[in-house]
């Protein structure tokens, strides 16, 4: 067998093994090990490939960004700031029809600007905004669908672990990717709100029990003092983390540390943290970090194996012969991402597909920052789609209301997935949406 054929077989075997439930990093490492062994006919080369990836891949200051942003996200939740974002948004929208739904979206967008852990938003808002919506007569299906749909904002709006990981594999600047996420993030937030408005006026029975939307909310306007107390920590965090990166004051890793420290101080001041809770947060940070880094290391083994097999260059040549246009390639890429997203988690998908497509797309001279944003949005659509949309499963496992089924969440999330698809197409047609701010920053340098 040629390296090319081994490469193709390895990809099929990999997807199959992942689908039937083998640990993803084990699959990647195993396939790489066997692949290199077969291609080179020497087990020692395969062993040294495993070791080099295991020892050297994450041995870089840049990778400190992962534990620190995870820690910051968990501390922000512990400090009760998830609840704050919801209260602020709800207060602003309390007279708007369908306002509780929009408040969930807006709160997610704000929360996304102070945390980077992808599943955090789904967990936090399942517990916070679903009960609130049910209390005011909203339908369970709409409530969980809104939480599922808006949870994806967390991965698009900086800081975001997903953007960080893309930056690490594509060797792009984390800061540029963070900036590029802002435009599409705002667009998506706005589109979700418009969607909810359309549903609240056009299809009120989909949103809530008859009459529920017409009743006046019994909630008082929040006193200015309370509003201020809830808002200023968020503003400070955004300034410390994103402001610091954009102003070029420090690196993303340092921003993560500073953000985590500030979040820790807020948790302390608000008496939300005990030694026990801090310990749980640290252990959880460790688990998430280990999970992500293990995946990254295994993916680096896999991309080294691909390099040895010559598959990416060969594939690039085959596709070049097919005379496939750039648009066709991108459509193919997005379809693959969405399909994979229905089966595996977003980080794994990115680590499997991006190294391959980076080589294939090389002749087209694409802007990798734009490519990263497209990748993230497309992957996220898959997370809302059956059979195994991950975001939906996370919500189901966090949900206290056991009468809401998985199918309900998928159906409720469907309109949001559609809107995401529209936004994705817009971002692909108009690269300025993510790149406008990036260009601005680049021109300032």
């Amino acid at each position, binding site marked *: 067998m040629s390296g090319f054929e081994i490469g193709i077989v390895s990809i099929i075997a990999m997807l199959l093994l992942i689908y*039937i*439930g083998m640990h*993803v*990093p*084990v699959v990647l*490492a*195993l396939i790489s*090990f066997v692949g290199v062994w077969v291609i080179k006919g020497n087990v020692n080369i*395969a*062993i040294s490939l*495993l*070791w080099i990836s295991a*020892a050297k891949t*994450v*041995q*870089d*200051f840049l*990778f*400190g960004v992962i*534990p*620190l942003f995870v*820690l910051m996200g*968990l501390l922000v*939740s*512990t400090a*009760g700031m*998830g*609840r704050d974002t919801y209260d602020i948004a709800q207060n602003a929208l309390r007279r708007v029809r369908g306002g509780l739904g929009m408040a969930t979206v807006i709160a997610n967008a704000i929360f996304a600007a102070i945390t980077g852990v992808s599943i*955090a938003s789904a*967990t*936090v808002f399942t*517990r*916070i905004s679903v*009960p609130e919506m049910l209390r005011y007569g909203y339908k369970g299906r709409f409530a969980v669908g809104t939480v599922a749909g808006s949870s994806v904002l967390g991965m698009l709006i900086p800081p975001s672990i997903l953007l960080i990981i893309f930056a690490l594999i594509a060797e792009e600047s984390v800061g540029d990717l963070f900036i590029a996420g802002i435009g599409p993030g705002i667009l998506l937030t706005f589109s979700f709100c418009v969607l909810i408005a359309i549903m609240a006026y056009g299809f009120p029975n989909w949103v809530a029990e008859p009459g529920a939307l017409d009743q006046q909310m019994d909630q008082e306007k929040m006193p200015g003092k309370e509003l201020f107390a809830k808002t200023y920590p968020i503003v400070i965090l955004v300034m410390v983390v994103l402001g610091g990166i954009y102003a070029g*004051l420090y690196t993303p*890793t340092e921003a993560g*540390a*500073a953000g985590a*420290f500030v979040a820790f101080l807020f948790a302390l001041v608000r008496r*939300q943290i005990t030694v026990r809770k801090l310990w*749980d947060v*640290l*252990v*959880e940070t*460790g*688990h998430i*970090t*280990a*999970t992500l*880094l*293990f*995946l990254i*290391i295994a993916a680096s083994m896999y991309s080294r194996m691909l390099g040895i097999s010559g598959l990416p260059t060969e594939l690039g040549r085959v596709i070049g012969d097919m005379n496939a246009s750039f648009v066709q390639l991108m459509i193919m890429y997005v379809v693959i991402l969405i399909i994979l997203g229905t*089966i*595996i*988690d977003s*980080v*794994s998908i990115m680590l499997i597909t991006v190294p391959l497509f980076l080589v294939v797309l090389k002749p087209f001279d694409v802007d990798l920052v734009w490519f990263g944003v497209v990748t993230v949005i497309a992957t996220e659509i898959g997370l809302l789609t059956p*059979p195994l949309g991950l975001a939906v499963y996370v919500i189901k496992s*966090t949900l206290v209301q056991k009468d809401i089924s998985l199918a309900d969440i998928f159906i409720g999330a469907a309109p949001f997935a559609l809107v995401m698809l529209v936004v994705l197409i817009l971002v692909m047609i108009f690269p300025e949406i993510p790149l406008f701010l990036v260009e601005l920053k680049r021109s300032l340098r």
Partner: protein
Amino acid sequence: MAPRLPLNAILGFLDVLRRIFDRIVLVSNGVASGWIFVLMLLITLDITLRFVFNSPLSGVTEIVEISIVTILYLQLAHTLKVGRVTRSDALYGSILRKWPAVGNIMGILFHLAGVGLMVAIVIGGWPKWLQAYHGGHFVGNTGVFTFPEWPQRLALVVGCTLLGIQFFLLVVDNLRGLFGKPPLEHEEAVDVQAAAAEESTK
């Protein structure tokens, strides 16, 4: 019933070994978790000193570089134990429920693959850490900040050994499952996010 006695003794001994192993995994996980907090403080201190007193700490970059690898390998076994290593378990889970025998045999193969890979990495890593130790390799720049390289190379070997053993314990669990016995020990991670959200709603 003379032959039963040594078997029980052996099983008892293995059980003690497993408990010791569990303790080691827990401690190494704890050390790494605490170290993340120390890193946060260290980097924050560095930034503060740099901006306020214009005198950065030297060596922070190197310390972070060494730490990431070390933290990762000290955490992995426990991460696997609490079921946090990424896998798509929807299909596997339902097979395990519907046809436990098939599911457990699949599990044995999956987890044996993990054991095998860890053996391969340890074989590759053992001479490297000895090399780093005897060769006096270091990271950083001479005169500014240097730190020996061997601790992180050793952490890799130790971490992969622990992870390999943990994979092997998963194999044992699947074997027990084949004979209708419950898993050895079950430990679940605390859901920090959900707990925090719950608390803030009160």
